[in-house]
């Protein structure tokens, strides 16, 4: 299943690149993300909560950065599963940053995602919509955090919690 999209943000490309490769910031901006831990220079471990209706899951993910071309492109592979192996997830991802001039950048992302297990059985058609809504929320969170002035603690928490409220 392919999930792709793009958004624009009022930030120069170099600064944005530093931000999206900063695990602490990503932990705040990725909807439902509980923590991101750097294991070695290219491997991160993350825990992310996802809910679709009655299914509420916590995925333990390992993200391996396979190629970095600063400040243009990051490629990665995400693998993970829910506790008890109830669902498994694999994704190959590419994020590209395009300099639009005037301190603005366009972010293009594409991910080839496969989900098996209970999520796959229950609502495969809806997974794409869910993935897209997570991506949109991430873009909003990133904007709130990076562009809309110095964030206060409560704003950052509010932005992060939106992804968990379902």
């Amino acid at each position, binding site marked *: 299943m392919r999930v792709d999209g793009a958004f624009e943000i009022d930030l120069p490309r170099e600064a944005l690149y530093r931000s999206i490769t900063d695990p602490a910031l990503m932990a705040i901006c990725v909807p439902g993300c509980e923590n991101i831990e750097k294991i070695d220079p290219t491997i991160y471990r993350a825990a992310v909560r996802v809910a*679709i*209706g*009655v299914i509420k899951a916590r995925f333990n993910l390992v993200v391996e950065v396979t190629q970095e071309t600063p400040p243009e492109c990051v490629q990665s592979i995400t693998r993970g599963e829910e506790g008890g192996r109830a669902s498994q997830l694999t994704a190959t991802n590419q994020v590209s940053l395009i300099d639009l001039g005037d301190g603005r950048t366009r972010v293009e992302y594409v991910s080839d995602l496969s989900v098996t297990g*209970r999520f796959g059985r229950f609502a495969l058609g*809806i997974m794409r*919509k*869910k993935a897209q809504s997570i991506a949109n929320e991430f873009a909003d969170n990133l904007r709130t955090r990076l562009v809309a002035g110095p964030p206060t603690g409560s704003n950052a928490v509010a932005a992060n919690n939106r992804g968990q409220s379902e």
Partner: protein
Amino acid sequence: MSDKAGLFRPDSLSEALHLLATVPDSRPLAGGASLIAMINARIVEPAALVSVTQIAELRGIRVSPSGEIVIGASTRHRDIAEETRLSGTLAVVPDAAGQIASATIRNMGTIGGSIAHADPGLDFPPALVAAGAVVEVASTAGRRRIPIVEFFVDWYATALSPGEIVVAVHLPKPKPGVGLYLKHRRVAGDFAIVSIALSRALDGETHIAVGGCGPTPVASAEADRILSCSTSGAALAQAGEVLTALADPVDDVRGTAEYRRLLIPRMLRRAMFDAAAKSAA
């Protein structure tokens, strides 16, 4: 469910609400048409189930002194399908109930369980939107009423808070007119690919909701206004366009999103013709 899963069968609503508030990871169980199937498929594994079907106050259909029709949350689909007081503009509700899945499931499933599950392919959600329902919910904190369009919030997500259950569905006093539910499905007993719920009063006031085409039933005050004023070919096309633009269907085994979008205006037209034929009869 784990081996240690518990089943509670409280006799009163207050007891059920207390259990749901205090037993960790407990879920209300009504007819079980969806929940038991999901447990069997190991899609959900609740630690405890609180059965609500033996609670008398949640069962049955009654008419309030003002003429409002109140359907208890554990009322079975079959009983709703056969209810003659749901007539005129409210006939859309029994028409939808009679087209849910198979007779076996209509004998088990309940209206409260159906809407709380909020599957986008279900038949009750669009029918209740067209009928202008209000959902009454309760928890240990008390009761509240939620207009049906605010009740459905996303794919499989409702405005219910944790520990809160549906206790009744309130329908306005029926007006003389027509209500009908047009369902397009692959085979008998399946979920809708696209469905149209229609409620049209004799004075022309029309309410339409589309099922199977997004996270929640697709309805539009503008489409309703267009169809309430005119049923010309141009009006039908315009209302169809408005509804199609609001739809956000998925690609799945039942059809592509594109196919579903193509069906909306065609099925709307057919539903309006059927309604005209029914009123003439």
